[in-house]
């Protein structure tokens, strides 16, 4: 038995971590936030070259056909870097395209793998489509509720602005006749996969924020001592660490349930999003309180991680929504 990604997946995650610290550090993030496009030039291509964008794509289409458990380390790094790129949306969308197969898959998947096409998906509750303004292809339900693959120029995309400068949200409408109906796709499974992928990102975000706060607490002096020596600071950070340390295995188990399409897949996915959201929100609050004034500024990096925490908490189902889905599974059984 093993409740952690395999060694090669961990290694791959480490390499992506290196790549991102290289091409997507906080400075690069700031540029992206100030840029109307909201993305870091070149990073998408680097992710493609690294093989990240083909992870969920079967080999016949040029990908590596990995399952969700192998994706976890990469997704944690995407979170740790607060990366403003549509990784989750594209990976989940690619999986759906592969399930649909046929022409649409042959047309699009190689381009996805090559980093030439971004995919956005609308699954589960809610009307907002994350990454839609960036997407070349949208997988969204038509008026009849059938999931369709819609090229961006055929869709009506109404973008809205989030406080998180590293995401792009929109509502998407599919005019009658537009797009291509997707058959043979597992929409609910895809939603659960997205939920777990986001939860993995959240644990990465939480790790990053706790690390930032610890670093600051080790250097900031008040009352003649570094504030990290005060119990009030220590205990807040310890609690934030513990919350995230216990969310991680829940996320890992959920990835396994998704990969195995286990009967508890949806319950486990919701548990993961709930636990990871609680942990990330706690890490954000704690990190801000430890940084105090400086953390409240736009100049300091922390706010980009906090705001990503806010968006990921609000999208793909809130923690209340997921807790209720767990309750349904556990209490109504």
């Amino acid at each position, binding site marked *: 038995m093993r409740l952690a990604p395999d060694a090669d997946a961990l290694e791959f995650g480490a390499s992506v971590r290196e790549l991102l610290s290289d091409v997507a550090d906080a400075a690069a993030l700031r540029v992206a936030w100030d840029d109307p496009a909201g993305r870091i030039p070149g990073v998408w291509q680097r992710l493609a070259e690294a093989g990240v964008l083909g992870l969920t794509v079967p080999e016949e289409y040029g990908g590596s056909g990995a399952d969700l458990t192998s994706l976890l380390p990469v997704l944690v790094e995407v979170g740790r870097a607060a990366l403003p790129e549509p990784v989750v949306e594209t990976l989940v969308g690619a999986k759906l395209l592969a399930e649909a197969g046929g022409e649409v898959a042959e047309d699009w998947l190689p381009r996805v793998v090559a980093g030439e096409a971004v995919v956005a998906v609308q699954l589960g509750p809610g009307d907002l489509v994350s990454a839609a303004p960036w997407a070349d292809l949208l997988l969204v339900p038509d008026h009849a509720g059938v999931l369709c693959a819609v090229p961006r120029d055929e869709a009506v995309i109404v973008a809205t602005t989030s*406080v998180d400068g590293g995401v792009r949200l929109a509502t998407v409408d599919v005019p009658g006749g537009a797009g291509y109906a997707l058959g043979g796709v597992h929409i609910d499974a895809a939603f659960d996969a997205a939920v777990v992928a986001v939860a993995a990102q959240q644990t990465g975000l939480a790790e990053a924020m706790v690390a930032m706060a610890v670093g600051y607490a080790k250097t900031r002096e008040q009352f003649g001592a570094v504030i990290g020596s005060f119990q009030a600071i220590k205990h807040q950070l310890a609690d934030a660490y513990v919350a995230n340390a216990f969310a991680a295995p829940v996320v890992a188990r959920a990835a396994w349930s998704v990969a195995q399409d286990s009967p508890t897949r949806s319950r486990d996915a919701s548990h993961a999003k709930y636990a990871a959201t609680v942990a990330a929100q706690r890490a954000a609050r704690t990190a801000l309180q430890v940084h105090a004034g400086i953390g409240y500024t*736009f100049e300091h990096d922390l706010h980009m991680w906090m705001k990503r925490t806010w968006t990921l*908490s609000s999208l793909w189902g809130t923690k209340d929504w997921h807790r209720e889905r767990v309750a349904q599974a556990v209490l109504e059984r």
Partner: protein
Amino acid sequence: MDLTEPAELAAFRGEAREWLRSHVPGTPLPSLDTEAGFAAHREWELEMYDARWGVVTWPAQYGGRDAGLLEWLVFEEEYWGAGAPVRVSQNGIFLLAPTIFEYGTDAQKERFLTPMAKAEEVWAQGWSEPGAGSDLASLRSKAERVPADASGAGGGWRLSGQKTWSTRAVFADWMFGLFRSDPDSERHRGLTYFLVPLSADGVTVRPIRQLDGEPGFAEVFFDSVFVPDEHVLGGVGEGWKVAMATTTSERGLTLRSPGRFMAAADRLVELYATTRATDPGAAAAARGDVAQAWMDADAYRLYVLGTALKALGGESIGAESSANKLFWSQLDVALHETALAMLGERATLEADPVAGPWLDGYEFSLAGPIYAGTNEVQRNVVAERVLGLPR
């Protein structure tokens, strides 16, 4: 016990409500963090001043109504209940003015109070420094003596150093703050309280963008800025004592009036009602938290009322202000978290007419546990001064 509102108080409430109903801008003013918005807020203050609603607790001779604590609480309830603008002058009228009334010379009162009340002169605070946040007493900005000339004129001080987290400073006209006037002094001793024009030579204001991206506060650099003796508030070297009057009121009753939270709680109740129609699940999950937020706002209102009545009864208000700050800052964050939970996927949409204001409010609430003494410091104060635990 008697909680019936006296007739005069009820009449005062009615008058305030009436005036606010007919004068509060129908559409929100532009953000205080923009030049245009700042100007618009100055105009609003002037309009209130002209109607003698700007500084109700001040003496009539300075444009006030000699209103007592209860009238003040009532006015604040009506003010925030009416959805009126934030107070651009609040540093001055709520924090500095009480200190001027207590320690200011007649000349200083004449010089500063009226322009302050009219918002012709908006004040910024000069407490924190990069190295002195929670530990304010470690501040290092200094004031060097400039002797008077033979004629006895020209005496004053040269200020050098840096202040930070100075709210409103980007567009403000003056700053009040503490500087170390005795170079050999340490901690709370040897500090002097100065009033400084931000237009003076040697003053540099660097805006700091806060969480929401707006320049809500600033760093202020002093490069041997001359200030005449007339701009010393209270005695030289008495700065800490003088400042405590302000920071006490800051942490005490006047920092966060209950009316604000009752108004927010009522908006939360409205949000719950609309959410129940659009997203019953989200409303059901939040129901308990909404009730709790409303109860906490009500509890805060009652606690402040009780404290005010004690004060009117001659009892002194001490570390209540720390308990106060802990309670309102936590209830404010929780109240907004509950709203964002109900807003679901819309929670971060800053342009959304419903979500936007809640998001702003949340960001603002996050400053509560930090400024005016972090909540960690406040818990120490409660533990040591109220419960008598050892330092």
